[in-house]
């Protein structure tokens, strides 16, 4: 018994963003926590204003903004992807299509907001 060829799933788009977000979180997450919660506050304890100026300058630099955008946006997609599949695994009686639109729509919206915020700095 052989099947006719099935329709291609569009899941690779969501999975790529999920995977990229997960990878980024795994590699950069601990370092970011270390730097922003411990190292920078310790180094800049004497001059908070200079620290603020330095972080602002980094975020205004195109490369810094791009990194921050990737860090935020991919994390949104990673989290929302897991939530969508988590709802399915928990047998929450919602249509997969609806969950997909709301989930990935939220990630897209949050990414846009992050982009607008970074551009406006």
């Amino acid at each position, binding site marked *: 018994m052989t099947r006719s060829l*099935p329709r291609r799933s569009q899941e690779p788009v969501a999975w790529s963003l999920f995977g990229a977000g997960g990878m980024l979180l795994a590699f950069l997450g601990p370092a970011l926590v270390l730097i922003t919660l411990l190292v920078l506050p310790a180094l800049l304890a004497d001059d908070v204003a200079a620290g603020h100026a330095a972080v602002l300058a980094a975020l205004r630099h195109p490369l810094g903004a791009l990194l921050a955008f990737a860090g935020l946006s991919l994390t949104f997609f990673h989290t929302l992807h897991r939530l969508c599949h988590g709802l399915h695994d928990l047998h929450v009686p919602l249509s997969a299509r609806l969950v997909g639109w709301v989930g990935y729509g939220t990630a897209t919206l949050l990414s846009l907001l992050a982009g607008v915020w970074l551009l406006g700095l």
Partner: protein
Amino acid sequence: MSGSLKVRVQRYRPEEDDAPWWQSFEVPWSEDTSVLDALNHIKDVEDGSLSYRWSCRMAICGSCGVMVNDEPRLGCKTFLRHYADADEIVLRPLENLAVERDLVSDIDPMLAHIETVQPWLQREQAEAPEAGETLQTPVQMARYESFSHCINCGLCYAACPQFGRNPDFLGPAALTLAQRYNLDSRDEGREARMPFLNGEDGVWACTFVGYCSDVCPKDVDPAAAINQGKVASNVNYAVNLFRLLRGGDDA
């Protein structure tokens, strides 16, 4: 180490029973008594009408899969001594598959899924035997070897919540076998298999619960194979996207 244990078995004989029912037996055990031995004891001594599948008694044939206390296990590889402290052990046919009779499951859906992914060596051109063997290095073999240990016992299908909810999902064993042949340096059948992996009932229906790998009696790790399949399907998606952008056909 020895004793006796209450074994509760789900019975269902379609020509007599309207619904499944339970039957209990007291089974003597010693250190080397397996669940399969217990079933053979029941059939030989207590009730000859009990039906169950078995053959090799050594975890190779993959016939004797049953639910032991709600866990998919091979009867021959599960020993009563591990349940010595329990009040009883409860045996049911494999989850997620229809019951044919007593502990015998209808495994046709699983076999159909396995056949779908064409798990055999495919060559674009047939070679004459005189051409000799198609050689493979140990490194090339190591890529797929662990996935080739699958014995088609179906425990992973009984464990998989996605297969339970969507019987069209190709499932752990089929997707693992697809990966096993896709990774084989001698095989040229990847193009025929990928559409089934790429489909909505292929690798993407898996949410990486991972219970299939927990219950696999041969340590095949289907969850890892499926995730490797997701990477392969992802690459295939990107390549297809470029082909479409350049005006090519959708594949």
